[in-house]
């Protein structure tokens, strides 16, 4: 590991911040190396940690091993949970989901897995914790800060849920950065041009398009658009449906009720899909309970099937170009991000729309994590030449009379963005003013996404229209809304009670953090005990070996007895769950064998002088 050398002083002064791409299908972590951003490999040698968590054992299993268990233990394995972030049970009531969830659980989805309930941020936190552990093992030091990427088109609740996941995982989330923007930072296009670029990001579960203007290291996003529920998953689901129908007619058996069969088929169609990016035909090869189903899939047929999905990405592209107020031919370069951009049809569609050959030089799976690491470098002051000016993807408004939206901050406004409004009371002695904040582009509240209700409380009793409360709506650099209120007459900060429409309350997140800390402490204690035992094993083996050496026989009986007693005492505490005790006895044994070690050294020296081998 190159970083073992010696940066200990610099490191001690500044905690290391990593960049994390928390994807629907896969997640990765990266850091800023002296030469640029680099991926942090996992303990299993793979760069990618699949965003899959399995709950079969007492402790959750995360990543590649969990992905393997999707087939063997489909009922207690959770995947693609990013699709559920920041959404409520009613949002997903009509979606086919491979999990059971509590439909009466208010504004947060609670999955029933392996005998307990899990919210999407808690599951994402497990993936984040795995990445954190990988980084800690790689650097051999604690990692507590991260920049996490989110789809550019994520709304406030989805962003907040991601931030909550980071906190539950024990990470200080320095910044949420939009995935396409992160990718543009990694591409280093700023060195090449002062121009306009488009980033087309088609991943496992989400689609984003961002149009950026580059100017001497400033990355100014002009417009962004997308669909947070459109990705490679949709292609897989389509192929699975076709496969299930095909199997039903061929076998005269409906296997769609078996979770195992569906997961086996998912694996088979994904393999065929991935192969078709490189070869003209592939086969869906499915075996279940001794029976086999095989189907040839040619690229033309595949393209015909997925064309509607690919075309759904084009309208957001046109909308982003319109909002950026530029002509298509002003776009100098197009950058491709996300695994689904490996599909030739996707590349053709993008090339046809933008009339430019898309960039595919960087690994589309890694480029977002690399960009997150660059942003972490910007925030820690290590990267000084770059600055990201991103936008909010959705307009922010408040509910007014008749359920109509009054827009305060328009979509594609550069963030941080703010708006200040004055509120007053409608009746004499009114003590509260409730402000309902929504996100979306439609005129009516019922067609927008409810974000939160802010309650201005304890207004001093006064005639109607007399109080003057100035409310400031600030969308911060993470794209998350902050609301503050001030009484204009007294100048005093006014208390605001926030009731989020979707997602966890602060108290709920705190409780989850606490729980995960306790878990983390258990983990730490267990690891320390295990490490102490390994050390005990080593010293016991060394002493046993030394007893064969002639140096042992040079010791007095008393000296030998002291060593033997120390050995016994160490063996007594060996199985206690107290690493302090084990270490104390290791130290004692070390102390009692000093004379022995000295004798062995002398014997060795003597032997060496004699030229004999010892």
């Amino acid at each position: 590991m190159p970083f073992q050398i010696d940066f200990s002083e610099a490191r001690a002064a500044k905690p290391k911040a990593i960049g994390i791409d928390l994807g629907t299908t896969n997640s990765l972590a990266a850091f800023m190396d002296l030469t640029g951003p680099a991926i942090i490999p996992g303990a299993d040698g793979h760069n990618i940690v699949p965003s899959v968590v399995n709950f079969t054992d007492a402790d959750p299993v995360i990543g590649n091993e969990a992905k393997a268990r999707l087939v063997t233990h489909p009922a207690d394995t959770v995947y693609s949970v990013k699709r559920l972030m920041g959404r409520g049970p009613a949002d997903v009531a009509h979606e086919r989901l491979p999990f059971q969830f509590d439909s009466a659980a208010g504004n947060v989805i609670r999955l029933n897995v392996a005998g307990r309930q899990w919210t999407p941020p808690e599951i994402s936190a497990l993936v984040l914790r795995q990445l954190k552990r990988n980084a800690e093992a790689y650097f051999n030091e604690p990692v507590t800060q991260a920049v996490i990427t989110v789809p550019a088109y994520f709304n406030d609740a989805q962003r907040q849920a991601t931030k909550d996941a980071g906190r539950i995982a024990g990470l200080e989330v320095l910044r949420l950065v939009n995935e396409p923007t992160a990718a543009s930072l990694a591409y280093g296009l700023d060195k090449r041009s002062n121009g306009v670029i488009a980033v087309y990001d088609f991943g496992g579960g989400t689609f984003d398009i961002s149009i950026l203007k580059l100017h001497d290291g400033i990355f100014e996003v002009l417009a962004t658009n997308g669909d947070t529920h459109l990705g490679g998953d949709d292609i897989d689901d389509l192929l699975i449906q076709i496969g299930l129908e095909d199997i039903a007619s061929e076998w005269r058996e409906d296997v769609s009720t078996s979770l195992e069969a569906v997961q086996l088929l998912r694996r088979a169609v994904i393999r065929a899909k991935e192969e078709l990016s490189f070869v003209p035909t592939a086969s869906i090869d499915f075996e279940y309970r001794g029976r086999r189903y095989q189907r040839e899939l040619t690229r033309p047929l595949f393209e015909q099937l997925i064309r509607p999905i690919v075309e759904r990405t084009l309208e957001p592209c046109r909308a982003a170009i319109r909002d950026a107020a530029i002509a298509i031919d002003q776009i100098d370069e197009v950058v491709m991000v996300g695994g689904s951009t490996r599909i030739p049809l996707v590349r053709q569609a993008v090339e046809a729309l933008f009339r430019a050959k898309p960039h595919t030089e960087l690994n589309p799976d890694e480029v977002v994590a690399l960009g997150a690491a660059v942003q972490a470098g910007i925030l820690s002051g290590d990267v000084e030449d770059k600055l990201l000016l991103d936008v909010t993807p959705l307009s922010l408004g408040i509910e007014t009379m008749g359920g109509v939206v009054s827009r305060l901050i328009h979509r594609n406004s550069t963030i941080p963005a703010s708006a200040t409004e004055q509120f007053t009371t409608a009746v004499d002695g009114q003590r509260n003013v409730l402000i309902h904040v929504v996100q979306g582009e439609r005129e009516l509240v019922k067609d927008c996404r409810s974000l939160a209700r802010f309650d201005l409380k304890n207004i001093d009793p006064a005639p109607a229209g007399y109080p003057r409360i100035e409310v400031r709506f600030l969308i911060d650099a993470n794209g998350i809304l902050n609301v503050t209120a001030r009484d204009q007459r007294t100048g005093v900060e006014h208390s605001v009670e926030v009731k989020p429409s979707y997602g966890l309350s602060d108290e709920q997140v705190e409780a989850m953090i606490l729980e995960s800390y306790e878990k983390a402490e258990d983990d730490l204690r267990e690891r320390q005990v295990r490490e102490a035992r390994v050390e005990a094993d080593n010293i016991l083996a060394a002493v046993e070996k030394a007893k064969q050496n002639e140096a042992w026989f040079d010791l007095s009986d008393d000296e030998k007895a002291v060593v033997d007693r120390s050995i016994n005492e160490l063996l007594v505490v060996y199985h206690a769950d107290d690493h302090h005790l084990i270490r104390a006895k290791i130290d004692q044994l070390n102390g009692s064998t000093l004379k022995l070690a000295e004798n062995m050294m002398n014997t060795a020296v003597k032997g060496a002088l004699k030229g004999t081998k010892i």
Partner: protein
Amino acid sequence: MTSVRNDFFAIFGIPETLDLDVAALQKRFYELSREHHPDRKKPSERAEAEQRTSELNDAWRTLRDPIKRAHYVLERHHLNLQPTPDILEEMFELNMEREEAETRDQLEAIHRRLLAMLQQTDQALAQSFTQDLSAVRAILSKRQYIQNLIASTENALSN
């Protein structure tokens, strides 16, 4: 509920003017962003930088766009939009024509004419920036009328 706005010209350190060099403004925006953006500040200074940058972004968004800029300047002077009698008459006639249009072709022809007029007003607006504010009030009000007519024509076309 009323909105409270900052002095956008002061944020850029320039005197109030409608006739702005947008390229120079953009250059200044980038310079100020580098100076004040929270990403380039120590954690303890970020909250203040966030506030400052949000105001800078708001100012840039308003001033770079000639129409938003014109509305903003009128608002600063507590002036509303005020059409001239000529404009009122012209708009009245256009509205009649639109209401009397019977075929889709006629509606589409009106739609094209309105879009062309919108472009003309935008050019006229830029020219009015060197004149007094009453010209700006008149042209902006004309623009508003045309926009309303475009919306109602598009509405009729989509039915």
